[in-house]
Each structure stands twice: as structure tokens, then as C-alpha cells.
């Protein structure tokens, strides 16, 4: 129960809620609303040995793998879809054994989070049995259903240490508004021990209430206003996905782990003292304007993908 009146704090302090070895749930999904600024700060702070849980992710998890912050991944998907394909840092880290592969499936994750949210040791599920996921998750158990006689899988409660989310709006009390698909963020917020949030903008409560409270304040540990905090992923309707930057990212990753460090991690993270420096480096307001004006006409929007 987080009930303090004013939850604002600087980004450095927000991210310091994450500790080495924590189980971390990252909000958003694929190229949508990833808490990228917070992840860059996490890397700058040298936080390590994270156990990642989540559904379908991309650059966020790949970046953490490329920076050596991850001990294990129980994401259900990490990649760049038909855009760039495989997540190369992630793949390398899994194949060298640096990251332990504990892949999970979306609904299994949902049920495990629900168990935590409902204070139950487990939730039942029909699927998963018959696949090889049971080998990756020896903690799953099977029972014969006392009602139907069917064999069901019981998946244990999952209570991440920290949920890290990027939202559109918060008020000072920590009420959040997310525009568009919340993906698993609401589940993460309810299931996790701590919920830390970057937002595009902190606004007065009444304004937030009019938009609608997606996540009530008492789940939220701390918030920080970080405009463009999802870049290079999208935060529609405020700004679109920066495919050009992501392409640069991908090509840096493709050239090998050392090159990735030299060409991406160093300039965009370690050598940036803060988020403002990063925004300058990626092209400043000119570039951001272009992403913000995705909606001015459809051809311009399409050009962002070419």
C-alpha cells in the first residue's frame, strides 16, 4: 500500500528501487511504450543479475541483455517481428549461457500473476502440458481435477520484485493513465511488490481523473516525469515508433557484442549523463517533432516505416 501524497522523484532515484538480482517485470510490449529511459538509467547504474518476466518484448530486453544486466529471461517472446527479426543481443546472451533461458507463455504468465494478485499459491491452466515448457519450468505441477477428472497444470504465483512501467500521465499521488493497450501493465502493477513508473507528463488529479485512472495510486511506489521516456519505442498518440533509430540499434547489435558496446551502449547510454543528453544525441527536437507528427497525414506516417 503506497499512500504518500507526493510520489515524484528524480529518475536516478526511481531506478534505484531496482536491486541486483531482482525479478523485474517490464511494461509495454514489442515496440510500444517500453520504459526505455528508465532502462538506460538502470544500465548506467550498473544494476545486474535481473530475472526478467514478461510477454512479448523487443528492444527493451535485447538492450538489457546487450548491457549484461540480465541473469535469466522468462519472457514469452523477444524479437523484432518482421521488422528486423531476431533480437541479436538476447540471442547471443542466451546462446553463451550468460542468460538462462526460462521462456514462458503469455497465458501462463497471466495466470501466475493472477495467482499473486489473488493471494493464491497457484492458478490452474489446461494448456502447457504436452509441450516442452514443463522441462523449462519444473516448478509447475499437475493434478487430477477433483471435479472433472481431467489433468490440469498448476502454475505457481509470480510476484515480481519490481514492475517498471512507462505511462502517458500520472498525478502526484501516483494514479496512472495509459492510453491504448495496457498489455500486461495492470497485471504487473497489481502483482508486483514495487511499481515504479516514468510518465510523459504529470498532470493535476482532476485532469487525470477525466482521462480515466488505469492504475490506482496505491499500487504505485514512485513516479518520475520523463517526456519521450519510451523512445525509440512508440508512445502513441504522443509519438510514433522510431524505426530509423531502431535500425541503427539493430545494425550495431548485428556487428557483434563488442561493436554493440562501442557503437551503441557507449554513445547512447554510458556517455549520456541523462535523458536530455540522449534526446539530443538521437536528433533532438527535430527528430522528435517528426515522430510526434505521425498523425498529420498518412503518407508521412507511412514514411516512418520505410
Amino acid at each position, binding site marked *: 500500500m503506497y499512500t504518500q501524497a507526493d510520489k515524484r522523484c528524480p529518475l536516478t532515484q526511481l531506478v534505484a528501487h531496482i536491486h541486483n538480482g531482482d525479478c523485474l517485470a517490464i511494461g509495454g510490449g514489442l515496440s510500444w511504450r517500453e520504459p526505455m529511459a528508465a532502462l538506460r538509467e538502470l544500465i548506467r547504474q550498473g544494476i545486474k543479475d535481473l530475472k526478467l518476466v514478461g510477454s512479448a518484448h523487443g528492444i527493451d530486453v535485447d538492450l538489457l541483455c546487450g548491457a549484461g544486466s540480465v541473469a535469466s529471461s522468462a519472457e514469452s517472446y523477444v524479437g523484432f*517481428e518482421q521488422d528486423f527479426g531476431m533480437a541479436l543481443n538476447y540471442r547471443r546472451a542466451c546462446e553463451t549461457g550468460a542468460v538462462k533461458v526460462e*521462456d514462458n*507463455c*503469455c497465458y501462463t504468465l497471466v495466470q501466475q500473476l493472477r495467482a499473486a494478485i489473488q493471494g493464491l499459491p497457484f492458478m490452474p491452466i489446461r*494448456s502447457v502440458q*504436452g*509441450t*516442452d515448457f514443463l522441462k523449462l519450468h519444473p516448478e509447475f505441477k499437475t493434478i487430477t481435477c477433483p471435479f472433472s477428472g481431467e489433468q490440469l497444470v498448476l502454475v505457481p504465483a509470480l510476484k515480481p520484485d519490481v514492475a517498471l512501467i512507462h505511462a502517458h500521465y500520472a498525478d502526484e499521488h501516483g494514479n496512472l493513465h495509459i492510453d491504448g493497450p*495496457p*498489455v500486461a501493465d495492470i497485471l504487473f502493477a497489481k502483482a508486483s511488490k514495487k511499481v515504479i513508473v516514468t510518465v510523459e507528463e504529470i498532470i493535476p488529479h482532476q485532469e487525470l481523473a477525466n482521462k480515466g485512472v488505469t492504475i490506482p495510486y496505491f499500487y504505485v511506489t514512485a513516479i518520475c516525469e520523463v517526456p519521450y521516456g519510451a523512445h525509440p519505442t512508440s508512445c502513441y498518440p504522443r509519438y510514433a515508433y522510431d524505426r530509423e533509430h531502431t535500425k541503427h540499434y539493430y545494425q550495431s547489435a548485428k556487428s557483434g557484442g563488442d561493436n554493440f558496446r562501442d557503437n551503441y551502449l557507449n554513445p547512447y547510454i554510458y556517455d549520456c549523463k541523462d535523458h536530455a543528453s540522449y534526446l539530443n544525441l538521437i536528433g533532438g527536437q527535430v527528430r522528435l517533432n517528426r515522430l510526434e507528427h505521425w498523425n498529420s497525414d498518412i503518407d508521412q506516417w507511412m514514411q516512418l516505416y520505410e
Partner: protein
Amino acid sequence: MNKATKITSCTLGELMIYQIALSIEDGILAFHGFGSPLVQLALHLAKRNHAPNLVLVAGATYGINPTPAFLTPTTNDFAMNRDAECHLSIEELFDLAASGRLGRMFLSGLQIDRWGNMNVTRLGDDDRLTLKLPGGGGGCNLSSDADHVTIWTAAHRTHADDLGRRRYRLVNRCDFVTSVGHRTAEGLPRSSMPYRGRGPDCIVTDLGIFGFNAEGHAELRFTYPDTNLELIAESTEFEFPVAANLSTAALPEPDLIECIRRLDPLKIHERELSQDDRGRTFELDGA
């Protein structure tokens, strides 16, 4: 696209989209997941064609019946979700599947076996990971829960290397079973499991179309105008039965082809195809 240009041929991608669309029944709820432009287009094509009452759930956004501005290369994008009639949450979509209300799901794999089991998790033995794949999203759950599954792959064709070895897509055995078909990872029949769904009923590939026989084994049902049984057998690691009425798959009508081209002005779906396959075209009957 210039409407005056008469459409006289379709591409392989368009044929595959059409064939995937044909597997979609009207009035069901279906979900296209992410990273699957061929399937995304097939669902929108079906909705605009023979399945107006389809409840189309867009992957990643979980928007229902959107009219995408254009197909984007990454799925969780507002362009894909434009004018959605309403929305589900991630848990609601999967609940609908688990309660038997997802009529059809679309799954693919880097390895696909004769029973429709698939692997998108990892290559290599249990002890030695040789290639980490992106993972299956919710495919594992949905392969059990969805009433029917359409399997597709645009990489069926294999090429022998200098030593005559091939890396098959349609394999004897999956290194890891990410999603289940008609036999479990342990070799048990699907019917021994308390799954809601009835498993895969077709595999649409770049070379032809399989159904599944009564035993749950993939069975070749259609070739394409430029493929034949021998070619398909050569690219398939396992042996397979052939339907008595093996025939050539139907090609889409010009208005459907036009619809696909309108939906995907950036030609995102071609990214699923090999460079060579992007050049394959088929003359339409009336051409």
C-alpha cells in the same frame, strides 16, 4: 494503386494470404497474434470477403475489428488498431481461448513436425542450445485452447548444401515442442489431453497446402501452379500421405488481390518470403 490496371496475376504472398483466409470461418472469434503479416492480411481479407461477422482480434493491441491505416512491420502500433470497435485486454483474449471461444488461431514454427507440433523456442539438445529463437508468445497456450489452428510457413522450400544436406522446416522431430499439434511432446495422442481445441487442420506453405488426416498426420491436399508432389516431398523431412483428390490450390479473384494490395501498401508481408519467392507470380484463370 491504379484501378485502371487490370489484375491478371497474383504473387505467392497473395496466394498464401488468400489460402489462409479461406481457413477462416464466418462468425468466429480469431486472433492474429504478432509478427505475422500474412495472417494479419488474411484476417482482414476474410472479414471483407466471406466472413463479415468475424470477430477479428488484432494481435498485440487486442483491438477488435480495426481498419488499419496500413500494415506496419511491428504489430503493437496504432496504425494497426485504427477505429477498433472495442478492445480486449491480454487476459480477456486468453480467457476467451481457454473457455473455448477462440475459433481459430494461426501459428508458425522454425520446425514443424508431421503432427503439427512446432518449435519457435530453441534449436539444439536439452543440454546444448545452438540457436535461441524468439519464443512463442502465447502460441503454446493457444495451440491447446483455440478450437482450430491454421499453421503457416513461408520457408518450406529447402536447398541442399554442397554435401546434399538440408535444413528442413517440416521436420521429423522438433528439438523443442513450443506448441502442440496432434501428438504431445511425449507422443501421446491429442485426445488424451484436456485441451479445449481440436488442433491444426491445415498447413499453408510456400509450396502447397496440407490438411491433417484422421490420425492427425499432415496430408498433402494442394499444390501450387508451379509446384508438385516431388518438389514438396524433397523439401519435407518426413514422409506424408497424399489426399486422393490432390489438386492445385485456387487463386484469389482480382478484387481480393486488390484488397490485399490496398491493405499493405508498404508490402510488409513480403518480408516473410525469401528473396526468390518474392518473384513468384501466378496467372489468373481469366487473364
